[in-house]
């Protein structure tokens, strides 16, 4: 027999005859990692087409803007931060992940809306996502001092239409940033927003200007991005207005970005509240990232823990709360769920899945902390830490040290 293409085919197919071992792919972990990565990738915009003029909640807020400006304490009164200058305050070198440094007050202005706000805070940046009914959804990034720097000219590629040909363009300035999960990124600064804003150090980012970047304090940058863009008017499109040209759409988007940016508040605000407290963590460990969904359903939050100074996450505690509405019961009777005695006489039901690449535990606790049901899952990020065995053994120990303070706690780590 000679080795030719047919023989190679037979060789490769022959490998199919060997039985496959069970899968160790952690699909849930992969999706969670994707969500996390996407949140940071959305900054600066990835869209290529322009926004159509359709808005429900956002329009209501926009029209209510001037009134709020006059009377409401959270109105858009000079909240753009301090433009960098000789007397400007300095941006923090790092953030406390448990106390968001920046947030939208947009939702305060429209309490009737069913919008959702996700706040993800690391020590180097805060990401706020406003989604659901807002058109477009917005993502705000606030980077700590030194994370983003003004840089020189930058040649970049973009596609003016979805799926269209890719073009090359030149920006005279760019913003060079470095973020967790996605590493270094460079954003073209395509125009100075000064002619709209009348302030220095504010720029439109990307093509054709669907993000706004400005220096909120010396050394610190904020980038507000419209994360979903839809094409300019096309005949027959139900949600678009005839005559909405690319130019008018772009102007509308810029106006909206400018107005929304005035609802951003900087400075440490109310700390996040957690339904549990972890009394013991391995030496040198701390919070890498806290993600909280403040409204919307299903309500979930995540606390990412790991060794301080490490680059990647090690453990993620994700929890879901089912409120007073009819809630599902804990899977006490399902296969593999074991009742475990927690602190203060609380009983939970633990399900463990352990495989070399997909280790996780789920703890379901009924009637705790004012909620009908609290589900906490612990995931280990594979490949994130060289001492994987140690990390997972830690995960197993986590539940034994959980406390459930009444009304929650702002200090989740004892």
């Amino acid at each position, binding site marked *: 027999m000679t080795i030719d*293409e047919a023989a190679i085919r*037979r*060789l*490769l197919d*022959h490998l199919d005859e*060997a039985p496959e*071992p069970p899968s160790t792919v952690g699909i849930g972990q992969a999706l969670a990692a*994707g969500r996390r990565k996407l949140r940071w990738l959305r900054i600066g915009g990835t869209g290529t087409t322009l926004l159509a003029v359709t808005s429900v909640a956002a329009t209501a807020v926009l029209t209510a803007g001037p009134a709020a400006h006059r009377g409401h304490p959270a109105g858009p009164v000079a909240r753009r931060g301090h433009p960098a200058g000789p007397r400007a305050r300095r941006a923090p070198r790092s953030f406390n992940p448990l106390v968001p440094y920046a947030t939208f007050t947009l939702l305060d202005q429209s309490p009737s809306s069913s919008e959702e706000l996700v706040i993800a805070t690391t020590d180097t940046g805060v990401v706020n996502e406003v989604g659901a009914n807002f058109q477009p959804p917005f993502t705000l990034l606030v980077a700590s001092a030194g994370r983003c720097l003004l840089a020189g000219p930058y040649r970049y590629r973009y596609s003016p239409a979805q799926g269209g040909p890719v073009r090359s363009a030149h920006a005279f300035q760019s913003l060079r940033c470095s973020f967790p999960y996605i590493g270094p990124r460079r954003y073209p600064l395509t125009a100075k927003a000064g002619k709209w804003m009348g302030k220095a150090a504010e720029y439109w980012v990307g093509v054709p200007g669907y993000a706004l970047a400005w220096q909120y304090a010396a050394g610190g940058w904020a980038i507000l991005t419209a994360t979903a863009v839809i094409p300019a008017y096309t005949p027959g499109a139900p949600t678009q207005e005839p005559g909405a040209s690319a130019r008018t759409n772009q102007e509308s988007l810029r106006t909206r970005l400018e107005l929304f940016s005035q609802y951003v508040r900087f400075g440490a605000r109310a700390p996040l509240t957690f339904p549990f407290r972890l009394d013991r963590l391995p030496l040198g460990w701390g919070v890498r990232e806290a993600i909280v969904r403040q409204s919307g359903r299903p309500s979930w939050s995540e606390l990412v823990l790991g060794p301080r100074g490490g680059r990647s996450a090690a453990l993620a505690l994700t929890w879901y709360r089912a409120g007073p509405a009819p809630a599902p019961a804990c899977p006490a009777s399902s296969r593999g769920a074991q009742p475990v005695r927690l602190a203060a006489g609380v009983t939970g039901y633990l399900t463990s899945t352990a495989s070399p690449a997909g280790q996780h535990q789920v703890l379901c606790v009924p009637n705790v902390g004012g909620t009908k049901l609290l589900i906490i899952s612990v995931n280990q990020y594979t490949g994130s830490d060289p001492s994987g065995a140690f990390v997972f053994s830690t995960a197993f120990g986590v539940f034994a040290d959980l406390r459930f303070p009444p009304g929650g706690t702002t200090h989740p780590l004892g």
Partner: protein
Amino acid sequence: MHRDAEVAEYVHARLPWLRRVAFRLCQDWQRGDDLVQATITDLYVHWGRAKAAEHIDAYARTILVRKFLSERRSGWLRLTTLAGDVPEPEAPDADHDTVLDLRNAVAALPPGQRAVLVLRFYCDLTVEQAARELCCSEGTVKSQTAKAIATLRRTLELAPLDRVGQEERP
């Protein structure tokens, strides 16, 4: 449908296929599963483009192959390779020797050549399609294929090949 649900549905349906391709690239089920997991993450991030693509499978396979090659190029693999033995799940096999010979032969190929072989002869791509997937010229695919076949000729002994041939003869 929400992105999470769509990606999860696709992955659940195509996981066995993704694992098989990854295994052929990595020649190791554990590493292959890690590769698939990383691929799912990227697929989630680029789901909009994947859905708009002609074939989602082709899009996912491209991510898989490029991730495999980039991990090989970077130093990450050396950093994460475990020194000890990773317990391989037991796979009852009728012909251990043959399978091991084949696996060893393919595993001995450089990653680029292995990727070309898997794409051309396992995924049945044409030279042009493989070149597009690997971001290289058609000439490179042809030369890599020729080198891989030549390497396999040298590596594989006649006996195991005969065994394969005999098994497949009626």
